[in-house]
């Protein structure tokens, strides 16, 4: 059973997932060096699927590379680049190598990437992809054809608590959970009140008992990175005041870190949030610093001590 599934199903342990760095060259050993820091903290690491519509080493290849380093992967599958046949093949192919965790996304549009002239696919949408992955775990392809034995899969999804229509986001998360999602990695959110409202609703509706909510924290170096996300990453809005706070600080790098730390503390203080999903664009040891500042032991320490985080009741 995947460690992520174990943690989600125990209903109380703190969960940390992280994003693997994208791969544009080098070999599996090089990749191991680059993923080592996040892997020492994260219970499972996402093998992304052409994030932000940029081509990189594939999700399945990266997931296998993670396995080879003894790191538990979360296979991200995005509906933008592949039709339903290829999406299923990704999941079943990765399962062949022991990949159990699957995170299903609709995906940014091709226009968000560096090849905006590409054909967009979206043969399935995010909720449909979750549903199809859940059927695969029951031993059936979408066609009805049998998989024998059925692959062992642990399916999750994403949701953006800060994108309009705000009142509808919890309902959309509920649709994905009903389709079979057992964990939800929420998009980075620079609007604390929106996150509070979203989590309050999904927790109140009992969704958090069926799926673990993990809040994404993005570690960036400076205000420029925040402005870039605000302008270029679909669905992410960074308030001008937040950017200014980092830009005008005497030490912008430190201010950017403190912003992430605040976000993480805030997210973990919300009843219903089970943990964090960490994306690191700093590559300066900030992941380790963040976890230490939050009082989160390493993955191995938590495993050895069956660490129980003090989750708010």
């Amino acid at each position: 059973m995947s460690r992520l599934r174990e943690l989600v199903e125990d209903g109380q342990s703190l969960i940390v997932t992280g994003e693997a760095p994208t791969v544009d060259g080098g070999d599996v050993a090089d990749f191991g060096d680059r993923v080592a820091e996040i892997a020492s903290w994260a219970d499972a690491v996402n093998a992304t699927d052409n994030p932000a519509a940029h081509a990189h080493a594939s999700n399945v290849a990266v997931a296998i590379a993670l396995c080879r380093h003894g790191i538990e992967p979360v296979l991200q599958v995005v509906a933008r680049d592949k039709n339903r046949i290829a999406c299923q093949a990704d999941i079943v192919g990765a399962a062949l190598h022991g990949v159990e965790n699957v995170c299903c996304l609709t995906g940014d549009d091709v226009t968000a990437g560096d090849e905006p002239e590409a054909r967009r696919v979206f043969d399935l949408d995010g909720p449909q992809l979750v549903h199809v992955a859940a059927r695969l775990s029951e031993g059936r392809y979408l066609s009805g054809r049998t998989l024998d034995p059925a692959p062992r899969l642990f399916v999750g999804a994403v949701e953006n608590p800060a994108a309009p229509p705000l009142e509808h986001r919890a309902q959309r998360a509920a649709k994905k959970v009903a389709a079979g999602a057992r964990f939800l990695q929420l998009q980075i959110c620079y609007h604390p009140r929106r996150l509070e409202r979203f989590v309050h609703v999904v927790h109140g509706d009992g969704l958090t008992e069926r799926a673990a909510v993990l809040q994404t924290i993005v570690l960036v170096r400076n205000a420029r990175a925040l402005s870039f996300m605000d302008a270029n990453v679909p669905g992410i809005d960074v308030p001008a005041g937040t950017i200014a706070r980092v830009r005008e600080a005497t030490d912008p790098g430190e201010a950017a870190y403190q912003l992430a730390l605040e976000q993480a503390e805030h997210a973990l203080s919300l009843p219903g949030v089970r943990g964090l999903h960490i994306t690191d664009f700093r590559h300066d040891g900030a992941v380790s610093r963040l976890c230490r500042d939050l009082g989160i032991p390493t993955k191995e320490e938590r495993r050895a001590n069956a660490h129980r985080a003090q989750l708010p009741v």
Partner: protein
Amino acid sequence: MGVVAVVEHVVKKPVFGCRMCGQCVLHDTGMTCPMTCPKKLRNGPCGGVRENGHCEVEPEMRCVWLKAEHRSRTLPLLPASWRAHFAALRPPVDNRLQGTSSWVNLLSGRDKERPAGWDTAARVEELS
């Protein structure tokens, strides 16, 4: 395209921007055609909706799903069951039906056909 399909297109194109997917779900989506979404999503807005409620792909266009969600709640005369259906999981589009008449497909039941593996194991058991 058959005669019925042509008539359907003439009626639905100007009003709903109908794309002739042949498996109409307008009643479930606040009478707003999800096929006018650049990603052709059938199950609600993607996470890329802009702060002003506009589309990630076409910045000048208001998100189709924002409109659908709003109208499914506020459109007068919409039966309660149609409003409730907004939250339902709609299956993937059957791409073979593109260009055919959803009216004919509705009458023949063709638009209700699902891929054999779409139903959950629990549902299959329930049906058998």
